[in-house]
C-alpha cells in the first residue's frame, strides 16, 4: 500500500497575492485573513466578526469573492489572491473608489474594502438595478451609511465605466 501524506501542523504554501508569488510556511490553524494582515502586512483587509457574517474581510480567491476569516491560509495553497491593495492604483483611486468618494459612500470606512472586493468579483451586467445591487451587498454589513450612498455609488460607477458607458 502506498503511503499517505500525513496531516501536518505547519505547511509550506505557494500563493500569488496581488500578482506577487509568495512561498511561506504557515500554521495549519492560521486564518487566511490573519495570514494577509499579519504575515504579509496587507492590513487593508479588515477583520470584523471573524465568523463569516460581516463581510469586512472579503477578498478574491481565483477571482471569486470569499470571506477570508473563514478560510485557512493552507486552503489557499496554489490559489491566486487579490486584496484591496491589489485593486487600488499606486496613485489615486480606481473608478469605483472615486464613485464612493464622490457619493460620500464611506463613513467610518471599516466595511469599505470588503464591499469593494465583493463588487470587484462580479460581472456588473448580472446586477442591472438597485434591487439586485442591494441583494449583492447584503453579504457586507455597513453600520454607518444605511447603504443609500453606497448603492448610488455602485449604480453610477457601473453606468459610467471608465472606458465609456456600458
Amino acid at each position, binding site marked *: 500500500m502506498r503511503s*499517505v*501524506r*500525513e*496531516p*501536518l*501542523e505547519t*505547511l509550506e504554501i505557494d500563493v500569488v497575492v496581488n500578482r506577487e508569488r509568495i512561498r511561506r510556511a504557515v*500554521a*495549519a*490553524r492560521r*486564518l487566511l485573513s*490573519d495570514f494577509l494582515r499579519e504575515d504579509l502586512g496587507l492590513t487593508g483587509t479588515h477583520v470584523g466578526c*471573524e*465568523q*463569516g457574517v460581516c*463581510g469586512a474581510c*472579503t477578498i478574491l480567491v481565483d477571482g*471569486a*469573492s*470569499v*470571506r477570508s*476569516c*473563514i*478560510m*485557512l491560509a*493552507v*486552503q489557499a*495553497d496554489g490559489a491566486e489572491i487579490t486584496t484591496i491593495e491589489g485593486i487600488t492604483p499606486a496613485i489615486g483611486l480606481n473608478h469605483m473608489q472615486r464613485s464612493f468618494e464622490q457619493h460620500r459612500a464611506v463613513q467610518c470606512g471599516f466595511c469599505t474594502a470588503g464591499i469593494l472586493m*465583493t463588487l470587484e*468579483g*462580479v460581472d456588473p451586467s448580472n446586477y442591472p438595478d438597485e434591487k439586485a445591487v442591494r*441583494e*449583492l451587498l*447584503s*453579504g457586507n454589513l455597513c453600520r454607518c451609511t444605511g447603504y443609500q450612498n453606497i448603492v448610488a455609488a455602485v449604480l453610477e460607477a457601473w453606468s459610467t465605466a471608465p472606458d465609456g458607458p456600458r
Partner: protein
Amino acid sequence: MKPPPLKYARPDDLSDVLTLLAQHGDEAKLLAGGQSLMPMLNFRLIRPSVLIDLSAVSGMDSLTVDGGTLIAGAMVRQTSAKQSHEVSAATPLVVQALRHVGHLQIRNRGTIGGSLAHAAPAAELPAVALILDAEMVLRNSRADRIVHASDFFRGPFTTATTPDEVLTEIRFHNVAGTRTTFLELARRAGDFALAGVAALARVDSDARTISEARLVAIGVSGEPMRLSEAEALVTGAPCMRETFREAGMAAARQVTTFTDLHATAEYRKEMLAVLVSRALSEVAAQ
C-alpha cells in the same frame, strides 16, 4: 475566535481520505467548503485534531445530468450549481433553493455535499434532497452504500453518515411533469430562514386538481420536515386558493416549533402557513 491547533491534509485521492479517516477516526473532521465548519472552529465549538480537506480530491466536483437526475459530486460549489443551465433545466428546485443559501461569498466556497452533511435545521438543500428523493452515496475504506434522503437526516446537525464515511455524491431525482418552488422568510437576504418551504406539485390540467404534492418545511424544527398532513389535504383537491390556505394551516398544526431571539413559535407557525399557501399557489399555477 481563532481555530484551535490542528493538523491539516489535502489529499488528491479519495482512497487517501478514507485511509486518513480510518486512522484518525473521531479526531478527524472533513473540510468541504468550510462555510459552517470554519465558524465552528473559530468559536471552538468543535476541536478536531485533524482536518482533511476534500477540495483537491479528483472527481468530487463533477456535475452531470442524466435524464431527470442530477448527479452532483459532494464538492460542487453552490455557485457553480446555481449558475448551471443544465442544473436549472434538469432540477429547477436545486437552483430555486440555492438562491436562498447564504450570500454570494458563502456560495462561492460552500458546497452541495457540505451543506447536506452539516444538516443545519434552517439549511435549504436538505429540503431539496427530501423532495427530490435524493440518494446519498457514502463511502468508507471497505464499501459504498446509498442512503435515501428520508433516512439520511436524523436531527439537528446529525445524519446517517458514520465517522469513517465520506459523502461523495448526491443524486437528485426530478419528477417529470411537476412544478417546484422554494420560498423562505428571513430578516435579511442571506440570513437563516425563520421558516421556509420547498414544494413540488403535479396538476391534472383537465380536472384542475392536484394529483401529487410534496412539501418540506425548514427552519421550524431540528431537521427538514415532510408536511404530510398538508400533502394529504391537497392531493386530489381542486386548485383553489381556499385549499392552499387550509393546507398552510394543516402544515402549521403539524409542526412543533420553537421560540428564539429571531421569532416566536407562534410567528414561525403563522409564517409557515403563509409560505405553504403561497408555494402551492405558485406550483399549481398553469
